């Protein structure tokens, strides 16, 4: 049974040149207990998608389409949304220092959502919060519940943020770049923690990141976004094996990759053709520059005449793997 179904989600805003779509026709399905990775460069709409699902879009943007999570979240009044946010769907943000309130102790911040959503008493909520903090690796004998965020390191703060997110036992956690501000070793620990919690509590996870490695290691399904569109989606394994969309392929090959061994030979002599990183020429078009055709057309090595005149339809490539491209790689 699918937990979250997003259908034709479009987010638009007013600009000098008229109405522009920041997200254009987003469709995907998330099953209970699975994880979905969303990758793309900055400005491709990854975070806007998360905000649209949570009903937290800025005032000047409007969302249309459907976000089915029990009912259509886009039609719910604010009061009912408040009962879902932090309770059934919760978010983990990028920068733990700006997520946490610097004036409140961590125990209180975790307990807050329990008092709001579960009607726990002050004492009950504090006790439960303490358990949740134990669960994320901040044992009470080492980390007092009355510590303030500034007394913790970055990784520990992110653990508190995760504790807040999972305090009420949500069905879905949306993690928006949860480890970008952290060191690699801490990043690995936090990702392990998220994976473990999601698995044990049978939660679903949407993991938004620009790091392809994180998606490869931690998710079952993935979406690749470019300029407000989904360009490729499918099981993570299939997407990484086939890389059918030219953008996915370009993005993937432009990362210095540990799969291709660096012999060091190219570096001792000239930076040879072998060692040179393949790049995607050009840049992401601004929202107002987008034509009615494929948004990747200017940078695409496979583009042909009809690419710039018509937006490519979604084509299926076997088991749940699909792409929006006229000329995908085989």
């Amino acid at each position, binding site marked *: 049974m699918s937990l979250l179904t997003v259908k034709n989600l479009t987010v638009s805003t007013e600009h000098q040149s008229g109405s522009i779509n920041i997200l254009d026709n987003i469709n995907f399905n998330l099953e209970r207990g699975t994880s979905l990775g969303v990758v793309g*460069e*900055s400005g491709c709409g990854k975070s806007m998608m998360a905000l649209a699902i949570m009903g937290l879009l800025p005032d000047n943007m409007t969302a249309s389409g459907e976000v089915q999570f029990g009912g259509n979240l886009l039609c719910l009044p604010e009061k009912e949304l408040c009962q879902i946010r932090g309770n059934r769907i919760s978010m983990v943000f990028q920068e733990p220092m700006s997520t946490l309130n610097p004036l409140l102790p961590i125990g209180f911040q975790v307990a807050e959502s329990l008092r709001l959503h579960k009607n726990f008493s002050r004492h009950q909520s504090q006790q439960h919060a303490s358990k949740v903090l134990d669960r994320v690796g901040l044992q009470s004998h080492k980390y007092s519940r009355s510590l303030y965020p500034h007394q913790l*390191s*970055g*990784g*520990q703060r992110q653990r508190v943020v995760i504790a807040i997110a999972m305090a009420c036992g949500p069905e879905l956690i949306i993690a928006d770049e949860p480890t970008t501000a952290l*060191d*690699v*070793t*801490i*990043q*690995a*620990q936090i*990702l*392990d923690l998220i*994976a*473990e919690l999601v698995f044990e509590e049978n939660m679903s996870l949407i993991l938004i990141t*620009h*790091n*392809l*490695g*994180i998606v*490869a*290691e*931690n998710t079952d399904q993935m979406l690749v976004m470019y300029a407000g569109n989904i360009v490729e989606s499918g099981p*993570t*394994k299939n997407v*990484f*094996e086939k890389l059918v969309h030219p953008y996915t392929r*370009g*993005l*993937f090959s*432009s*990362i*210095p*990759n*540990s*799969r291709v061994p*660096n*012999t*060091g030979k190219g*570096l*001792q002599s*000239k*930076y040879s053709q072998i*060692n*040179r*990183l*393949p*790049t*995607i020429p050009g*840049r*992401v078009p601004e929202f107002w520059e987008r034509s009615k055709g494929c948004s990747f057309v200017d940078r695409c090595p496979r583009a042909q005449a009809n690419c710039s005149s018509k937006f490519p339809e979604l084509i299926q490539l076997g088991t749940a793997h699909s792409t929006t491209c006229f000329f995908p790689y085989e």
Partner: protein
Amino acid sequence: MNQENTDNSLLKIRNVVREYILPRQRLFSSVKRFRALDGVSLTVNFGESVGIVGESGCGKSTLARTVLALEAPQSGKISFKGEILHTLKAKKLRRMRSGLQMIFQDPYGSLDPRQSVENIVAEPLSLLGEMTFKKRSEMVAEALTNVGLSPNDTVKFPHEFSGGQRQRIAIARALITRPALIVADEPVSALDVSVQAQVLNLMMDLRDNYGLAYLFISHDLNIVRHMTTKVAVMYAGRIVEQGSTQTLFDHAQHPYTRALLEAVPSTDPSKKKRNIGKNYVSIMSGSNIENIYENGCVFASRCPVVEDKCKNFSPVLQNFQASTSARFDNNTQEIHHKVACYKPYDELVKT
């Protein structure tokens, strides 16, 4: 390093110590010191790119500042082209500085928004003394062309450029004095993946064309692997392991290096679901870099294979002799490989 006596070395860092005095906790309490750099030694040869990796707070950026003579070390010395930088008179130092340039992490913060690109790029030229206006504009135009921008961009301002282009401007500024060494402190971590590759390619092309040497500071191990020939791994102000990039990535010996390498997410989905609890990263206890034994190994408080000896006696960075089990392509790489650990990985495997 074996090339100590040869003339090939551009920058020599020898036993550099940099301490900061921390604020007193109480009025009469003793002054606490924080050692940001604790006996760091490193050599950068002409045209060589050397990577420095480590977590935040390990002293990477302090090392960069000390190399650029923005800060003087308490002890040890840094010589650049044979001159010891921090003992030079201001006038001479200023002249030496044209050989040393820096690229910063954030291209949005490192370019003055009120200055035109021409002024930004031409600023380091003041180090070279008086020059005619015409000569100046020629050099600016040339620097911009070198980094793939148009000479007509000189009248524009930084806000008119994207992140990748701004980083190109920053590179043009670093390049204009024809430096021998560029210190790049996380030069691409603020950029998008597809733009990162463009900037990295540009940096390597410039290295080929002008024989630049890079001191490349980054926390992204894949990028360091791609960009450098030699790597030093820093932890809490000390170099815990150094060697040629290939040796270090293929035969890492120090437990911290191994943890760092394991922590890098692999882009291979079949490696999904890391065996939690069995690798170095997850058994690496605690995350507090300040928790350090006074006389022991800096990494002892987090080390998964710690012994009593490690807590009391600090291991010295010494040449690592590969056991017979490890195969090297040629013997010269062994000489470069140094580890500061009592229990390097190869010996653990043996027992």
